[in-house]
């Protein structure tokens, strides 16, 4: 079944070819889930529990201490929940797209609610894709193929 491809990708772990994904979600269970789904698709994953933390990790925050770039881990994809207290996924998307350094990084928005106006708003702001939660392995595999060939 998929065991051949997954054991192949497990063998690729430390050779630097794995895309690095930043996953942002305020819900712990969803964070664990998306992390596992991404790791199963041969991605390196960093998680953040809110938009501010995500911006810090991307080097767009006020505090440059935690910038992933300085530790040598450039982010290839950002996947974020829409509904988060404080900074929403949409706000985060805008900040990323406004930054000269990060605007090329694809941003995927996830939500448990299928609201067309919300989806369109995100796509118009430059989101690469909108995904409905809960995510399945098949969704993530498709994402991996489409965005990071």
């Amino acid at each position: 079944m998929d065991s051949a491809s997954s054991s192949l990708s497990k063998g690729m772990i430390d050779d630097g070819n794995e895309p690095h994904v930043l996953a942002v979600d305020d819900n712990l269970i969803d964070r664990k889930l998306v992390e596992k789904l991404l790791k199963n698709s041969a991605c390196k994953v960093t998680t953040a529990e809110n938009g501010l933390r995500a911006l810090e990790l991307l080097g767009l925050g006020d505090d440059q201490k935690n910038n992933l770039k300085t530790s040598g881990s450039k982010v290839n994809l950002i996947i974020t929940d829409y509904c988060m207290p404080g900074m929403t996924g949409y706000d985060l998307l805008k900040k990323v797209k406004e930054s000269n350094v990060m605007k090329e990084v694809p941003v995927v928005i996830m939500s448990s609610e299928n609201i067309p106006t919300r989806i369109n708003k995100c796509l118009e702001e430059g989101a690469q894709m909108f995904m409905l939660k809960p995510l399945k392995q098949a969704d993530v595999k498709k994402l991996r193929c489409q965005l990071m060939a």
Partner: protein
Amino acid sequence: MDVVSQLQRQFVDFTTSLYHEGFLDDQFTQLQKLQDESNPEFVAEVVSFFFEDSENLLNNLANALQQQIVDYNQVDAHVHQFKGSSSSIGAQRVKNVCVAFRNFCEVKNRDGCIRCLQQLKHEYSLVKSKLETLFRLEQQILAAGGTIPSMA
């Protein structure tokens, strides 16, 4: 029938009934599929986070609804969280109560909300005990030297 086969049969019957009675939905199967040798405790880990999270949410909800003036935005925020978590682990009946609960929040119906909270506590404690039984059965099978039947 030897002990392992008996336990495996019990496990299959019990799991089937959980899906049949709507306690769990396909999302739980998806969770089980994610578990592998590199992370053999994945489902148990996620479920234990769910238990902890749920208990906090239920307390927060009880507090919020006991206030003189109820902040329905706050109540809705908690229910939204609960809906998300329960949906992510496949706890279908819990999720369905959350959906109804949010409707009552929207119209600021205090009695409706209080009723939903009771229902939520009830459904949560049911699914918690079912999942604990499921994990116990798994442990018994493994202890008897058997493998856990795949339900996929």
